[in-house]
């Protein structure tokens, strides 16, 4: 009996101490050093998304490092604050809150999946801070506190389909994707777009697979079957990161050649190809706004400093990295223009800022918080790089509300005053969706 009591009182005092300790430790405001500007980096370093996001953390550290070598910002050094949201979506929100309210960062660069962005969005809006989101996504969103430096569907999916239609004369389409919001929305948009171009419903096959799907035998066989109807067929793949390697391995093994059934992917970049033997994939396509193989002085420098920074000659660069490069430089420029890191002022200064991108042009921040980008179509080469086979003649402005979805075609976003609205309905002339 005495043991029991002892145990009990021990446990309870531990609990009590812990609760008090917790309060004390959290109650203490982090000492905010005035001589630095803090920049939050919110990318998963563990869990399922680490495979993609860790690189982005590294590139941010490199960019901050370089900026500090150039003398910092507003005469202060930049200080990166790295946290690990561990591919756990509620943890993203918690970490975002921690970065903003405890570490007092001036801006955050982070997130990869849509769900992580959706999870932190209310936090950024509530605490009024800035998030730079570097990944291509499904659109249908515009927040005052978020700057979308990745591609909207019209900057990736639609040009890719256009290319296949005009250059490869594709008439039959397989829309294959992982079952989540980005592929669902992208495919909805593409379906509407294809139908508007006169493609018949029976010439479109839509297939969804779970995350991390690893057995692609039947689906590749289905694709082959669908492709044997006598019309030129192509696959538009919105298959998510992890599942791509087994998918491409199966394609290669079953002998689906790009010359017969080309696959164009929106989530496969240099980083993903680094894990596959690309010889059988020669000629399959990807649509991005950046490829490592693009030969411009800016890109050559970027690749060189990236390899030097990571001390690894084999490290590749990819599109979301360029998005961070653009986003970071835009932020630096806007902060310099505003003369302060105060989010409200920086947000206002952001619109219209233009910085060089790595493909030889300038990207500008639009009033809808998306940016202008060139769209490149690349074919996979044997060395795991892409050969650019098509490039849009000019820059494509990011369109947050798709024109091909019935409920969003009347919406626009414009964060300049006096409109300051993320979902302005041009039909009703009111802010707030249907404005009803």
């Amino acid at each position, binding site marked *: 009996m005495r043991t029991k009591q002892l145990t009990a009182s021990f446990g309870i005092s531990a609990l009590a101490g812990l609760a008090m300790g917790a309060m004390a430790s959290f109650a203490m405001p982090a000492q905010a050093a005035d001589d630095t500007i803090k920049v939050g980096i919110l990318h998963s370093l563990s869990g399922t998304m680490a495979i993609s996001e860790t690189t982005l953390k590294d590139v941010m550290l490199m960019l901050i490092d370089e900026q500090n070598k150039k003398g910092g910002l507003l005469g202060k050094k930049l200080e990166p604050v790295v946290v690990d949201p561990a591919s756990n979506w509620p943890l993203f929100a918690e970490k975002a809150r921690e970065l903003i309210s405890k570490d007092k960062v001036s801006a955050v660069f982070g997130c990869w999946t849509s769900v992580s962005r*959706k999870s932190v969005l209310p936090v950024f809006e509530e605490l009024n801070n800035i998030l730079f989101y570097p990944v291509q996504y499904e659109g249908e969103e515009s927040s005052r506190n978020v700057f979308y430096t990745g591609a909207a569907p019209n900057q990736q999916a639609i040009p890719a389909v256009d290319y296949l239609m005009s250059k490869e004369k594709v008439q039959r389409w397989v829309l294959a994707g992982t079952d989540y919001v980005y592929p669902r929305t992208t495919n909805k948009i593409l379906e509407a777009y294809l139908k508007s171009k006169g493609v018949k419903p029976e010439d479109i096959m839509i297939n969804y697979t779970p995350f991390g799907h690893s057995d692609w035998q039947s689906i590749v066989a289905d694709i082959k079957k669908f492709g044997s109807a006598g019309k030129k067929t192509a696959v538009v793949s919105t298959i998510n990161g992890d599942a791509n390697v087994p998918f491409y391995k199966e394609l290669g093994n079953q002998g689906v050649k790009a010359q017969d059934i080309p696959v164009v992917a929106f989530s496969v970049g240099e980083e993903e190809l680094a894990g596959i033997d690309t010889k059988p994939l020669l000629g399959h396509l990807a649509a991005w706004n950046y490829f490592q193989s693009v030969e411009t002085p800016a890109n050559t420098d970027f690749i060189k400093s990236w390899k030097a920074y990571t001390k690894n000659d084999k490290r590749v660069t990819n599109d979301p990295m360029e998005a961070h490069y653009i986003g970071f430089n835009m932020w630096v420029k806007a902060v310099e223009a505003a003369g302060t890191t105060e989010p409200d002022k920086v947000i206002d200064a952001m619109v219209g800022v233009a910085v060089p991108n790595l493909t030889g042009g300038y990207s500008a921040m639009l009033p809808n918080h998306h940016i202008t980008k060139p769209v490149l179509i690349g074919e996979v080469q044997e060395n795991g790089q892409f050969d650019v086979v098509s490039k849009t003649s000019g820059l494509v402005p990011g369109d947050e509300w798709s024109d091909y979805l019935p409920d969003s075609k009347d919406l626009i976003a414009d964060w300049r005053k006096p409109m300051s609205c993320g979902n302005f309905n041009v039909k009703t002339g009111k802010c707030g969706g249907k404005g009803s």
Partner: protein
Amino acid sequence: MLLRFFLMGLDRKAGIVLTILAILAVAVPVMTLWVPADSPFHLSVFTVSLLGKYLCFALLALALDLVWGYCGILSLGHAAFFAIGGYAMGMYLMRQIGPRGVYGNPVLPDFMVFLNWKELPWYWWGFDQFWFAAVMVLVVPGALAFAFGWFAFRSRVTGVYLSIITQALTFALLLAFFRNDMGFGGNNGLTDFKDILGYDIQADTTRVALFVATVAALALSYMIASGVIASKLGKVLVALRDAESRVRFMGYDTESYKLFAWTLSACMAGVAGALYVPQVGIINPSEFAPASSIEAVIWVAVGGRGTLAGAILGAVLVNMGKSYFTGALPELWLFALGGLFVAVTLFLPKGLLGLGAQLKAKLPGRKASPLSNAQPADQKGA
């Protein structure tokens, strides 16, 4: 009679736990809302929601401990009940957004609008009423647990077989909720909530109120759980944990006992989920992930299986560690966490709350290898 039931479970330990919870319920609001921000005793709202989250996990751990610690059912699928409770609350919160969604549709949530859904699916009906959602928070996890338990316990599925099919259950639900066709928002889940019961969900007072509600739910669940354990039913549960067939030969229908505890526990987990969602602002299928259920088991083991206070302690401690290490050691925290689990199982087989007893037992004899605990103690616990 109800009073007697609650009093039955009130021993010294319960008294202390409830006192701490009562202090939290009073001190936190005061320190957050009324103590000036520059005072060292001020508590930020961030801290409050963090504490609230820990306490939701503590409630989940408590529920899990009720079945694992006291009835020997190792559930590796409790996160499923937690998530279902969360979804029920999330659906209510979604409906509360009303026309404030980005498309301004007064009825349909945004994700349904952009997937071109025309009308609300039937299983969303009624969730615009708080009372209905609140009932569903209890009923849906409870009914699922009841159905699952009814079959599993009657078929005498036990031990690791039961554990693995609970994993199968949560994994199947994970896949199902990932499907956009299910009408629960797919991978993005439910998010962007605006208000709850008419109060702005991001307001400081609402957050504090949610925290207090969580404390109250935890305290109430603690009282229910300890009342159950102290009752004769609780003694039957412990008895059947250790020697189920003996209990059966004594004339107790062990299946219905297990079913009772299992369903009660699932309801508690559902409540924990329902309180969790408004505080973290999102519910997504990854809550169903098999790993989250296993993590909950680990909280209980760290704190001390078979002691309700231990479950609470473990959940709070492990999650605090996780919060701290993911910020302080972003590259290494998995080593710390993994190491902690190994260390706890090797050196603290009875969890942190068992530490005191363990130390005392070791003092006279000094060196005792971990093997001394390696007897087939698995079925014993406590």
